[in-house]
């Protein structure tokens, strides 16, 4: 029983991290109609940024604001220079663009930082463990990541529900054609959404660096699983991404723990079931 509790905690923690990554992916897809395959590379860039900053400053704390600020700037730059031009192009063109970006980012990482596997130390202040069950403890850093993800999710919902810009983004995600009719500046919304998505993915990478270590191609797995989250939750829905991410996190973790033979398959079986039952996702508009 206590084992189950620890695994549920693992699943929630994994799911919340997935939410940070997939919320950006679903918004970019919903608002701009762009399939961004390079989203996993943004996660990797955030993790490597944390690694470099932690090594240079001796502390991970600086990496978190750096990932957010750097993500906003980098995301805005990418949107203004590249993604804007591909918004109305066919999906195949977008796939080619974002696949090229994956190759570019990986090559740049290889040239600047090499292909080695690096571990990133946990901040000293959180380098202790808290017993969560009679026979299993949780590192304080892991619990801090869990709390921080909940905080970011709460701030996001607050911003989306309670601010003018938030409602504009929601409107754009649900009915892109409404934005122009309402006299909103679509270009500003696109830049904002893409910058926010990039910052969230890079923040997730920075938070995950001490938990996962950093290594080449570390974003690939997260890209695929994030697409599963988006499909399960419903394209363009942040609430869908939230519940979808928690569901996938729990199914994946509990699957690995209790049905190891099906571990790799469990989340895809879930996705298939959702597609059959509610083809546009659990939280899709009009579903």
């Amino acid at each position, binding site marked *: 029983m206590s084992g189950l509790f620890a695994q549920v905690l693992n699943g929630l*923690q*994994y799911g919340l991290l997935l939410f940070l990554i997939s919320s950006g992916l679903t918004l970019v897809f919903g608002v701009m109609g762009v399939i961004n395959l390079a989203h996993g590379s943004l996660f990797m860039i955030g993790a490597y940024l944390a690694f470099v900053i932690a090594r240079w400053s001796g502390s991970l704390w600086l990496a978190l604001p750096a990932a957010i600020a750097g993500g906003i700037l980098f995301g805005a730059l990418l949107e203004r220079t590249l993604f804007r031009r591909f918004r109305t192009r066919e999906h195949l063109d977008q796939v080619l663009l974002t696949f090229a970006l994956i190759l570019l980012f990986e090559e740049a990482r290889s040239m600047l930082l090499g292909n080695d*596997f690096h571990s990133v130390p946990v901040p000293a202040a959180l380098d202790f463990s808290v017993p969560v*069950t009679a026979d299993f403890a949780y*590192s304080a850093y892991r619990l801090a990541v869990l709390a921080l993800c909940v905080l970011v999710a709460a701030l996001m919902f607050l911003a989306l529900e309670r601010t003018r810009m938030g409602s504009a983004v929601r409107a754009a995600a649900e009915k892109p054609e409404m934005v122009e009719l309402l006299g909103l500046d679509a270009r500003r919304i696109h830049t904002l959404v893409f910058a926010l998505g990039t910052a969230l993915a890079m923040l997730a990478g920075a938070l995950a660096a001490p938990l*996962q270590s950093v290594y080449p191609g570390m974003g690939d797995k997260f890209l695929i699983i994030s697409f599963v989250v988006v499909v399960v939750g419903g394209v363009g829905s942040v609430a869908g991404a939230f519940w979808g991410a928690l569901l996938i996190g729990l199914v994946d973790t509990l699957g690995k723990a209790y049905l*190891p033979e099906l571990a790799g398959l469990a989340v895809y079986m879930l996705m298939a079931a959702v597609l059959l039952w509610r083809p546009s996702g659990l939280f899709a508009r009009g579903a």
Partner: protein
Amino acid sequence: MRQSAALPISRRGLAGLAAGAALAGAFPPRPALAQGAPLRVGLMLPFSGTFAALGENIAAAIELHLAERGGRMGGRAVQLIRLDDESNPANAVQNVNRLLGRERAEVLIGTVHSGVVMALVQAARERGVPLIIPNAGNASATRELCAPTIFRTSFTNWQPAYGMGLALGREGVRRAAWVTWDYAAGNEAGEGFREGLRASGGEVVRELKLPFPETNFQPLLAQIPGLEVQAVGSFFAGGGAVQFVREYAAAGLKERIPLTGSGFLTEGVLAAQGAAAEGIRTALHYGDGLDNPKNNAFRAAFRERTGREADVYAVQGYDAAQLLGIGMDAARGDVSAEREWVRAMRAARIDSPRGAFTLSPSHNPVQNIYLREARGGQNRVVGIAAEALADPGTGCRMA
């Protein structure tokens, strides 16, 4: 580090070698054994990238032994040709061809990475070139892909893990779990751990695996308390080993269920693991504080020559050079006298810093696997886990 057994290597023997040389002309004829023509030994090792330090220590130890012999083997001066394989399997075949072609190497020593070593194994099988492997532990090189001209002075992944399992069973461990990356090296080690533990009365009740090189250990660790095991065995190396040892301690498991493993779990990474590694026991064919005259002399000489402390990789390199010296002395420096040097090397008793060892019928060391305990940044030898342990060499048929 992909599975090696998939490589479709056929042994064509000397006829193929002759035909290939005649056809392509890519390989210049062997230099005549004129007096004074140096023996060209190709060192294919990583001198850059993750494993650069390992390659440097292997090469330095080979140079050390050569210097002790006055730079000669079998009456010929020896010329070492270094080639950086970057631990990149994609360039491995090309690098081997360069050593045997343009660089006219007559003997090959290499390498660290178990994917790259397959190109060397292939060359040794197809062209009859003498090959000594100073690290890569993939079992296949001395099992199903073994050949008369292939020798190894390091270990198979099976060996240290077998020793660890055997030692645990002897201490009364009846139930243990095994944790590793799901790839060739991890699975070969897992087989060793299981067989060693079984040989001394215990059982591996659960294998927990995750894809290489993922480090999301948490779902695996949370299962361990419920397994009611008395010990955990593991195979990880490098950054993954650092992460795993730290998370095992952070999960509060270390005090209740001892973590053990193949020696690479704590080899060269103790500083990064810090207090989390303290007290962890591992098994390997070498360790710190091994007190024998040969080891003490070797360590002093290595320190004087390089300014660094010797490690297991240096020992493996040193012994590769010793083994080659024995073979070349027997053949009086004539590499084409395959029968002579193979016979001498097979029968060799290597006076190694790890303790003297001989070679098994499949050309892998029959060696002590030491039990070590991590203490104060060192892997101190505390006993012998398995004495004179040979790899089973399953599937090896020497033609």
